[in-house]
């Protein structure tokens, strides 16, 4: 079962949440971030080239212009490969674990998998960031030595930054699975 809904992130950009229910114990949530806008790209390129042209008129060295083109290209490639995240996915499988994948604009994917034995709970936290109050979904990890303590807090959807309505949807689905998992697990 698959469905798609449109939400907005904390800056007002448009996000698309795709939910896939593969089975009662396996669900996937996929958040698509807004794409790289042509306006900002053009603005940055023009700024860099104007600065280079200004330096060129000062020093009359054509290497400056070639260097500016090179820097722009490398900067764009680096941005697409290391910074711009296109899609963030959360896959939750009962009795196996939770997997978070970030896909970058250049196609690179970075994945983290947390085993279910380490997961204590999934919660929505409230944070004050400068002048904003934002909500974020995070996974609480158990301490292997002391199961009642929380050893780590792993935030989810860090670059998409959806608003509370989107988070509540994801939270409810995750809690259903975690409740079932807690009922059937052997460890306390």
């Amino acid at each position, binding site marked *: 079962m698959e469905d798609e809904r449109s939400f907005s992130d904390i800056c007002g950009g448009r996000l698309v949440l795709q939910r896939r229910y593969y089975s009662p114990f396996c669900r*996937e949530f996929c958040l698509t971030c807004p794409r790289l806008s042509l306006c900002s790209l053009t603005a940055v390129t023009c700024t860099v080239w104007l600065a280079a042209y200004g330096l060129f008129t000062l020093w009359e060295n054509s290497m400056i212009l070639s260097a500016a083109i090179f820097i722009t290209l490398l900067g764009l490639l680096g941005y697409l490969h290391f910074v711009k995240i296109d899609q963030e996915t959360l*896959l939750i499988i009962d009795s196996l674990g939770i997997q978070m994948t970030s896909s970058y604009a250049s196609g690179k994917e970075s994945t983290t*998998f947390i085993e279910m034995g380490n997961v204590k709970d999934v919660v929505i936290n409230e944070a004050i960031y400068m002048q904003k109050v934002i909500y974020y979904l995070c996974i609480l990890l158990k301490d292997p030595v002391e199961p009642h303590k929380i050893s780590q807090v792993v935030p989810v959807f860090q670059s998409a930054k959806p608003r509370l309505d989107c988070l509540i949807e994801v939270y409810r689905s995750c809690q259903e699975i975690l409740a079932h998992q807690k009922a059937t697990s*052997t460890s306390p």
Partner: protein
Amino acid sequence: MGLVSRGAAAAGLGAASAVVRPGPPDAVPNPVPSPPPGGAARGSSRVPGMVLKAFFPTCCASADSGLLVGRWVPEQSSAVVLAVVHFPFIPIQVKELLAQVQQASQVGVAVLGTWCHRQQEPEESLGHFLEGLGTIFSHEPWLQLCRERGSKSWSCKAIRQQVPVAPGVPSEDQVMLIFYDQRKVLLSQLHPPTVLPDHQAGDAVASSGGLAVVFDTVARSELLFHGDQYDEGPVRLSHWQSEGVEASVLGELVKRASGPVCLLLACLLSLVSAVSACWLWKLWPLPFIRSKLSTCEQLRHRLEHLTLVFSTQRAQSPTQLMRKANMLVSVLLDVALGLMLLSWLHSSNRIGQLADALVPVADHVAEELQHLLQWLMGAPAGLKMNRALDQVLGRFFLYHIHLWISYIHLMSPFIERILWHVGLSACLGLTVALSILSDIIALLTFHIYCFYVYGARLYCLKIYGLSSLWRLFRGKKWNVLRQRVDSCSYNLDQLFIGTLLFTILVFLLPTTALYYLVFTLLRLLVVTVQGLIHLLVDLINSLPLYSLGLRLCRPYRLAAGVKFRVLEHEAGRPLRLLMQINPLPYSHVVHTYRLPSCGCHPKHSWGSLCRKLFFGELIYPWRQRGDRQD
């Protein structure tokens, strides 16, 4: 058959299964009751309601029908399938083989269930034969994996005999199929390495073991993978090596040759270490010189590395093996770069050019220093110095420079020969050549070091004198016993002389401070240059190139974890996942496998450095092993 009779007794119970099991027309299909609600576990191997995970190797997906052999982990309700046993077989021999593997590897290998590849089976009756095997090899739960004919879909069931709902009625759990690449999981190493408890203590695994159990199981069952399908053994298995055992001629040759080569090199290296530890080297002033020269330190470091690499002991753990490999690759790269440098130096008479340029450069430096001193003896930057002290200090330093220049000119005929022989040492490695360069710089700027020491000592004395006399001026003194400042009543004579001396020192302070400042800056410049060279040497010493190369070419060997991908899913069919290895990021590789460096790092923080500079204490930019003498 046994299973059919049980099916007939349980007719009419529970919801129908979405899986259609083909069977003879007169048999009643087994109904599937819904999984019992979560409750207390019954028996030691039952987790009610938990989804059963079956780890299936991708190489067996196209194998013929047969029995599934692997390990059952009850705490996580997961079955790790290691191989498929094909027909025909004799059950006794299969049990013997499994007992053998269990004894050798301490892994609880057993027959887990049946595998049926319907696309390759011409008849349907084989299915019933497989069902009967459940009585011969009893296992709780009994897995039945099946690949359907004419479609890409799979079906899997896990049947349990012990059931709480009604005795004698088999129940089925939900099964999740997880495919894994057996070869990659066998060869990979999880980071951080999880230490699993000893299996002799009874197969008990910590609940946080999780996927580490799968890796451990596959890695320990190597005995099961030794035979391939062309063997004449009693049992025909299908696993990742069943197409033919992996081996390479070069690998075997290297393994055979490494024994005697290691022995020979270990003897040579022990001879060299014995010579270097000889009592002759302990005669003064040789240990003093050895502690100052970074070349000796670097050579000793490399000797240690080589001894470790060529030691005749096998590596105990994968980490040790990686460390040995990293050291070997580092040494080889070092020597290769050194040989390149050597060939560059000895081509087109570069050594001669270097030697010809060296004496004029030293002369030029000395001349610049003389100009600097003349400037200081005048009115530097418009400041007015105390003429007498200025002249004394200036002449003292000028005389030193004159001595140094004469020494350099004395050495000049031999410089080319010395450089030529020193250049040969580059064949020992680029790091050795760089250490020698650093030592040559230290020797050539020895006079700057001497000036710095003189200036610092004078300044330090002055500062201590000033602080003590300042306390006297205020009527206090330093209590050595209590380590604090106490008030004290002085005589009139003491106060008079003290104040006089204080005034003299205060007025002479600018002169001394200026000389100290100038020579400290020069010294810091030399130290920076030497520090950069040492940084480069450290980089070559400690970078784990073999690990980085492994991460680049065989990323599955260094695993940070796993990742899952959901395969094509149809409603009513079991969930299928593909488990892949998530490789370690490059930064973690460097961090985990860094080789220990010489340890020659500056131990000061910026604050303590500034404090030492202000008070005129001598700064030693790095400490070698064994403290540097004053």
